[in-house]
């Protein structure tokens, strides 16, 4: 029988002898099929997705299994590729937000904000304080809404259906609030270079505060319903552990990185909008398993709720947008602007050569990096854990495929 290492080396899957690599090869062969009592057995190669209930969109995992145990996993993506980066080269700077909405479609504000920040950095536009506060307010409302979708579908992956609909009830309130402010439920196009589209409508602040005080109670109810369940804890504790080095090597960001014990939050380390003035904690996990990621995200929702209150209390008077020309023509240059989106560090790398449209618009999607780490951590787990780990990393296919 051929040694697994030989097969893998022949296929170019292992690093040459002596070179350092942080993890085992992704999509590599860990073990050759091994027979029991001389009988040859085959590994089952199963195609999970793109139409599978738990791959969160159109992800396709090609999973090689020995019984129910994963031997290797390979992600196949591109089913939602719309060429956002190419399209952006043909859009004026004002229109980039609409494209970003369709990237990470569950937390559109963050994408819009990233593109707006990049343009502002390039043009050196000063933003009124009120716009900064509104951006933070909307970002945090959108973060809770997005985390609630994650929370619901994560429970759905374990087979628990109840808390999904409870989470959707709260999200519905948030989406109503977002609709009241921006006019749209998901594709907001609210954050523009120079400021935001509109001020809070009359009575909206009271409505948001009402939600906040209700959510203090509901978040604990959600946590009790799912996280307090022992079956759920057995399903997530110790599952899909990503240690600190692997997390850094695979470029994870956001809650996935913080779950692995790295306290890096773009809002804290590279403050943008009004985050410098906000008081919030950055929750950090220790072992990096699915449970830590779960706890980090739950705590993030509580912190977001705290920040929404601070925004409403400290909302300054004044304009909600700076005076910007109708057609933006930034000077030549290259900038990178990042925001902490619901899924991690969403970055926009913008290259301008003058003119109405970007020369190159690169969307750094945090989910893409989380997806690569999946290929590394899935082997050794059971099939049922695959959906749990995909769920716990909260990947969003819209921004992976772009």
């Amino acid at each position: 029988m051929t040694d697994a290492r030989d097969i893998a080396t022949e296929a170019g899957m292992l690093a040459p002898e002596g070179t350092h690599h942080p993890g085992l090869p992704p999509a590599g062969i860990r073990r050759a099929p091994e027979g029991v009592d001389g009988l040859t057995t085959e590994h089952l190669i199963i195609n999970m997705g793109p139409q599978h209930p738990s791959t969160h969109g159109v992800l396709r995992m090609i999973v090689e299994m020995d019984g129910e145990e994963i031997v290797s996993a390979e992600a196949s993506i591109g089913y939602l590729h719309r060429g956002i980066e190419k399209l952006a080269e043909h859009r004026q700077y004002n229109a980039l937000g609409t494209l970003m909405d369709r990237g990470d479609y569950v937390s559109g504000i963050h994408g819009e904000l990233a593109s707006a920040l990049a343009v502002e950095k390039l043009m050196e536009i000063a933003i009124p304080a009120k716009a900064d506060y509104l951006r933070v307010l909307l970002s945090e409302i959108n973060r809770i809404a997005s985390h609630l979708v994650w929370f619901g579908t994560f429970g759905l992956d374990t087979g628990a259906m109840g808390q999904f609909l409870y989470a959707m009830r709260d999200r519905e309130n948030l989406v109503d609030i977002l609709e009241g402010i921006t006019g749209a439920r998901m594709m907001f196009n609210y954050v523009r270079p120079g400021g935001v589209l509109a001020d809070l409508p009359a009575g909206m602040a009271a409505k948001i505060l009402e939600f906040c005080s209700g959510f203090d109670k509901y978040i604990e109810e959600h946590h009790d319903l799912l996280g307090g369940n022992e079956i759920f804890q057995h399903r997530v504790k110790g599952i899909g552990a990503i240690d600190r080095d692997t997390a850094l090597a695979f470029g994870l960001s956001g809650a996935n990185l913080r779950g692995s014990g790295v306290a890096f939050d773009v809002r804290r380390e590279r403050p943008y909008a009004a985050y410098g003035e906000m008081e919030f904690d950055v929750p950090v996990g220790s072992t990096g398993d699915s449970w830590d990621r779960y706890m980090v995200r739950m705590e993030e929702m509580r912190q977001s709720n705290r920040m929404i209150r601070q925004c409403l209390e400290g909302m300054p008077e004044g304009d909600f947008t700076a005076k910007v020309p109708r057609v933006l023509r930034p000077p030549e240059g290259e900038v990178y602007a990042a925001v902490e989106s619901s899924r991690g560090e969403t970055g926009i790398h913008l290259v301008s050569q003058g003119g109405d449209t970007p020369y190159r618009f690169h969307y750094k999607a945090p989910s893409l990096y989380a997806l690569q780490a999946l290929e590394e951590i899935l082997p050794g787990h059971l099939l049922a854990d695959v959906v749990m780990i995909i769920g716990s990393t909260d990947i969003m296919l819209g921004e992976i495929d772009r």
Partner: protein
Amino acid sequence: MLPDETVIKHILADAGQSDADIQETALGLVCTLAPSVVASALAAFKESELDFATLVDLMGTDTGEEIELSYHLRSFTRDEEIHIKCRVAYDSEISSVWNTYPSALMPERETAELFGLTLSGHPNPKRLLTTDGVEPLLRKSSVIRTLQEVRDR
């Protein structure tokens, strides 16, 4: 935020490029290297005292004459960032840096596919986003609509 330039020069000299072009731009600190030394330079950066543990981002740009690859590194312990750039010709072969930064696995595939490059030393150098036969979309020569199509709209 910005790492020490002299330390970087020192690391790059060890990696085989003593005359690297280091500039401070709106992007941050940008080093432009020859394509042949990028892989060794990245490995050196990761192992160095600057501790660039993470490749945050990897992208390509079609400059009109060649493809510019840009690697964005970050050190979490020192909170510093650096951008490494190199320029390669169209249709050329780039060597994978996944041994140093596994996070480059998919962005490399994507960049190679969308700019029409070939990957060497990559464990899985398949196309990532589009199907076989699709032209390199992000090259400036590839148009999303031809002039005729625009007229016919």
